[in-house]
């Protein structure tokens, strides 16, 4: 933990009506790592990301990014600060071409459209979208491509920290491997710190440097993937308590 802290979440809470989705969660993400965020359904993972990226305003607690308090700021401000994300349910720009969608992301750091387009093209190639697909409309591409374009669009904003929200949901096993490679490349070659929310363990255990486990809105435990996977608390969270 002596590494530079990129994001620090302190006692974050969020309630929806009577349901407490996040309950005093504190955690850190350090520069350069891939942090896996796991937990059974309803654990509060997506809510955590939504609170950090400004989609929701938290009911309590603080979000510090590079030491700056960004709690409750608007999403576009947070994006400008350097936090990007992808979406659990893909949010593609159906009536824009692939390259246009990514360029929209790249324009956050430049006004020059040509430059942004070039950057977008590079990023698209980096994540493995062939040039032949650049001019295809969003509504005409496959799910795996949507995931990659979503990812490219987020990367194009040149984030310091990128949250991937269930990026491999709904993909076939070999497609999961493709994404895993891309995500590792993004981390290593682009130096982007990653927070990976994931249910597909084969994927998250494989790529993560460190894992935090949320359960029912609380931080259950954290550690190396192998440790976490054998932690009885985690096993219990996933497989349920011993029969009563």
């Amino acid at each position, binding site marked *: 933990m002596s590494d530079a802290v990129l994001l620090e979440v302190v006692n974050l809470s969020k309630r929806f009506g*009577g*349901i407490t989705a996040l309950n005093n969660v504190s955690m850190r993400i350090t520069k350069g790592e891939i942090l896996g965020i796991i937990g*059974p*359904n*309803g654990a509060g993972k997506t809510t955590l990301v939504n609170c950090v990226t400004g989609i929701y305003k938290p009911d309590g607690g603080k979000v510090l990014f590079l030491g700056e308090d960004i709690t409750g700021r608007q999403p576009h401000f947070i994006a400008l600060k350097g936090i990007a994300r992808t979406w659990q349910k893909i949010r593609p720009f159906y009536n824009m071409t692939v390259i246009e969608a990514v360029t929209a992301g790249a324009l956050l750091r430049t006004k020059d459209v040509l430059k942004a387009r070039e950057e977008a093209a590079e990023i698209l190639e980096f994540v493995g979208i062939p040039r032949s697909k650049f001019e295809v409309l969003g509504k005409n591409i496959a*799910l795996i491509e949507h995931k990659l374009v979503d990812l490219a669009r987020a990367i194009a904003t040149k984030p310091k920290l990128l949250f991937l929200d*269930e990026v*491999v*949901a*709904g*993909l*076939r*096993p070999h497609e*999961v491997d493709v994404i895993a490679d891309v995500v590792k490349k993004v981390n290593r070659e682009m130096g982007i710190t990653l927070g990976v929310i994931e*249910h*597909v*363990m*084969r994927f998250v*255990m*494989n790529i993560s440097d460190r894992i935090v486990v949320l359960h*029912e809105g609380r931080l259950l435990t954290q550690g190396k*993937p*192998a440790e976490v*996977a*054998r932690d009885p608390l*985690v*096993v219990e969270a*996933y*497989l*349920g*308590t*011993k*029969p*009563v």
Partner: protein
Amino acid sequence: MRNALLELINVEAGYGVFRVLHDVSLRVDKGEIVALVGPNGAGKTTTLKTIVGLTNLFKGEIMFEGSRINDVPTYNRIKKGLALVPEGRGIFAPLTVLENLYLGAYHEEARQKLSDSLEMVFTIFPKLKERKNQIAGTLSGGESQMLAIGRALMSRPKILLLDEPSLGLAPKIVSELFQIFKGLNEEWKVTLLLVEQHVKNSLEISHRAYVMESGKIVLEGESSALVNDERLRKAYLII
């Protein structure tokens, strides 16, 4: 010969043009409790939705009581005796508890047995009787789950499909719920197909179980045998 009530044969299904299920086959016999477990995103919910006809079925057969129901619209599948308690309960929040229950008995045959069914549901869930005129949206988590199940029972289903019924409930209520499932099966002779994250609990009460991962069935067998199977933990946590 076993009496297959519901059977999925090599089913491929999904939403829009996206496929989520790849070649799923499973069977539920009459009187059984079958558990369908697996990590999130494995396709369990999609499987249940496919059974009631809420997804795009690309390939395969869905058989119910020996006849093919691929092309039967959802509302008629309910009539035939399928009932699904959807994930997140799906109660009609602005309606009262009683109205929710009535809706469960919407189709004609169920309507005729309305008062019987209501009595049955109130026997199983006495709490609902107390709250019958309350707006469903104001129920607690446990109560609304009971309502969702009670509502499904109102249609007098031959098979009850339960999608993550224990999600977001306190442990005490969860174990109560599992007792109720057991009771439903034993006393009221309801066949159950149970999708659950409380794997161990589910395996405890079910006869047989399927384990899904990435849209495929990866493991199946007698529940008692699966409980301590190391492969089960690996399906969830890989390592």
